[in-house]
């Protein structure tokens, strides 16, 4: 059996998707790593292979993507996360027109033509504010786990205003709000609104065209998703495992190679 593999080496996590010749996902793994971590990428690949009872020799074609796509020593081809997230989102939600991806250290908005081709994109290329790392710093400052932030924020009655878009200054603002007695729920909701406002501006660079799909680790935060839905005035579709959309797209490109479509 010759399988198509996509490995997404992000700034905080490594993801692998293995796909069979019928374009079915055989297995996938998400591994938390260090900054652009080849060891985590290899671990995610090995674990996904184990899950599918496959040997390395059965990899027919492997596409790498993500921030570390060119930094790892394996892979037959590298494709940007922009193309891969678009491809993965189109596979999961055919006809998608906009993909919002917020990963560990970057965020992007991708515009598609409705048939899966990228027609425009915008990316935060200078600052990691409003990304997964931003949420991690805020969770640490508030002494809550990042996983519980989304649900907690939905209970907020009076969201605080976080005016700064800089991670460092926003952290100071959060500490200051805590010192002034604001409750955690409201501060967390304020943090999500700050991320939402920043993403709203990036979305406007390419235009809001539904249906919109959100991918990346931050899509797991229901608080951020709700804020964005409110700001954009439309429903956002989130796949069951939003972190693997890039790796899935990479696996689909690998599958094309195996089928001789390239």
């Amino acid at each position, binding site marked *: 059996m010759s399988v198509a593999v996509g490995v997404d080496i992000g700034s905080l996590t490594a993801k692998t998707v293995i796909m069979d010749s019928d374009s079915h996902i055989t297995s996938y793994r998400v591994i938390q790593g260090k900054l652009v971590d080849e060891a985590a990428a290899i671990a995610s690949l090995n674990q996904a292979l184990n899950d599918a009872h496959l040997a390395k020799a059965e990899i027919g074609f492997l596409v790498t993507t993500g921030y570390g796509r060119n930094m790892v020593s394996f892979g037959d081809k590298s494709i*940007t996360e922009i193309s891969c997230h678009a491809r993965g989102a189109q596979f999961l939600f055919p006809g998608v027109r906009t993909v919002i991806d917020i990963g560990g250290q970057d965020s992007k908005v991708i515009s598609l033509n409705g048939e899966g081709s990228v027609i425009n994109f915008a990316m935060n290329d*200078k600052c990691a504010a409003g990304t997964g790392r931003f949420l991690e710093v805020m969770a640490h400052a508030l002494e809550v786990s990042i996983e519980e932030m989304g649900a907690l924020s939905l209970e907020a009655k009076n969201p605080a205003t976080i005016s700064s878009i800089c991670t460092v200054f926003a952290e100071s603002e959060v500490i200051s709000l805590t010192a002034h007695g604001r409750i955690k729920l409201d501060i967390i909701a304020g943090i999500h609104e700050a991320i939402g406002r920043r993403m709203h501006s990036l979305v406007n660079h390419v235009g809001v065209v539904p249906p919109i799909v959100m991918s990346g680790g931050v899509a797991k935060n229901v608080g951020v998703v709700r804020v964005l839905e409110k700001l954009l005035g439309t429903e956002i579709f989130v796949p069951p495992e939003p972190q693997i959309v890039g790796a899935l797209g990479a696996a689909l490109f690998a599958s094309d190679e195996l089928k001789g479509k390239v």
Partner: protein
Amino acid sequence: MPRSKISGITDKFRAVVDEPYEKLKQWKEVNKKKIVGCSPMHFPEELIHAAGMLPVVLQETDETITTGFSYIYPFFCGITRNLIDIGVKGQLGFLDGLIYSDLCVQNRTAASILRQNLPSIYVEFAQLPSSFTKEGVMEDTIKELDRIKANLEKLTGRKIDDKSLKQSILVYNKNRSLLRRLHDLHRADPKLLPYRDMQVIVQSSMLMPKEEHTQLLEELLSEMEGMKPTSVKGSRLFLSGHLCQSPKADILDLIEGVGGVIVDDDLYTGYRHYAVDVEVNGSPIQALAKRHLEKSLPVPTRTDLPIRWEKYLVDRVKASKAQGAVILVVKFCEPHLFYYPFIKEALAKACIPHIMVETEHEVVSLEGVRTRLQAFIEMLR
């Protein structure tokens, strides 16, 4: 091997560009001639050449801005801040003259700061009309060029007569025509030279004595014209922007490294610099004025353009058969940023995909730029 000969010649050009001001100091010590620096874009170097001096176009260096921070706002563009910084640190003290011209507010400020800080140097501000077509601009241009001509004569102690000015125009026209030949060769076969080398060749033409540059360029062209064309694989791109400075080589390497093939450009250190010659018949001062007014290519540092810049760009991109355009914008370049929305709209209307990349004097996150450029190329395929 022709390739190694070509590399040998481009290395000579690069040696000048890598350390522009050190090389000029050395040149001055050997040749005992005066050197006049010009701010980029509008001032006709021929006038300085005819006065028996070496005109050079000031180039941005990689130096970290330190002392200059005390003299200028951080929201001024990189080349302006860099030139002020190296100026106040004394690195431009070897110049005998410095001519700034009216491109933008930042350039005007730079001229004032350098005038105050370089008291032993003749610092001129050329108020050449920014309008192409307003009534009286020809007379005003000639008057201003005559005024500066008289000042240059005082500086050098030598009369600039029509004969010497015409001779200088011929020297410059010849160099421009050779650069156009190089441009045509590269357009026909973009893999002949990496674009960083194309930039180095044009930049060195702004720093070396023209006669010396022309001789080296002739050697280069005779080698290149004998070469077999290479097959071009990749996405054809048109490069525009950087109104008065060269893009950093890293960015050009990134574009080519991710599969882009630069087939034509509208850069100052590119086609814009050598596209148009000066007429050789009639009054040479009038001919210089005509080049400034009637023959200049559209650019956003000028007003009353005979053709809108965005229209000109769309036509050039179409003629180059490029699949997309890369617009390089220097951070805080007001004229360019003012125009960008028009360019964006015109390119979209003409169905020409483009990507805008903002560059800075300070280090830009190249990995982010790489991802954007690679994704743009993937989008074009």
